[in-house]
């Protein structure tokens, strides 16, 4: 059963770390681009210009 927990935990950690990293990178880029931030539109990528 320990192995089961280990597997689930490992999976969760890997996915959580990647999610956190992606969101963190997004946020810091948005901060750098802040003066030119366009209003949010719904869709796949709101700030996509083409």
């Amino acid at each position, binding site marked *: 059963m320990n*192995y089961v927990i280990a597997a*689930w935990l490992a999976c969760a950690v890997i996915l959580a770390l990647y*999610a956190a990293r992606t969101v963190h990178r997004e946020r810091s880029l948005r901060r750098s*681009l802040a003066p030119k931030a366009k209003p*949010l539109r*719904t869709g796949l*990528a709101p*700030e996509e210009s083409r």
Partner: protein
Amino acid sequence: MRNPVAPSSSRLTRVLGWSALATLALNTWWGLWLSPPDVVQGQFVRMLYVHPAVATMCYAGFGICALASIAWLWPRLRSPRWDRMAVAGAEVGAVFCLATLVTGSIWGRASWGVWWTWDARLTLTAILFALSLGYLALRRAIDNPHSRALASSMVALLMALTVVVDHYATSWWNTLHQGTTLLQPDPTIHGWQLATMLLSFLAFGLVFAWMLIHRYRLEVLEERYDQEGFSMALEARRAEATGPEATAGSVAPGEVARPPVEVHIR
């Protein structure tokens, strides 16, 4: 006043994200508590509620990368959107690939006592992971967006074809050595076990979609930063340099008035 730092979520990803977390929680509850241990595999059957779903999302990610690369290469379809989708699929696929290898390895250790078996599917997944690392490294090495898209879409296509060859190679190789196929789906799975496994596909599917969209957005932001960030930094420097003079209002004696330097990037 508009918030200068827009949040990275939109209604779509908020809905996706919360439902992903909710179904994951449900999957964990069902998987680790509610569903009964298997007659044959005992507690280890609970691996079924993580590993197959994660593996499928891995293949989905790489599949998206391959299809998006083809779309980018297709003369009339070419658009930066496909290239962004390709890298998103590849990177998210690679993350799920790592999770697949780790959960598969732990499952192997639990069931068979060894951290690795040269099982056809596990070996193929390992090759897939290595290929994806190469693809991502190639992308990082090219700065020009068009060259990068061209090179990586070709590499993705070639790798996709190679994977077909790999599939046959590893399965022939494995049957040659009569390796144990670790991950045969249990044919008698039903009831709670089947329901939970289906739930796991939904849960990880939602997680996958959420990650894909965010990675796509990240790519858009990176592109914008590459284009604008440099000229913005330059403007900031210029503002620093000309600021004190502007507030002073006049040229100090002995200095020559200089017009602001016009620099055209690109």
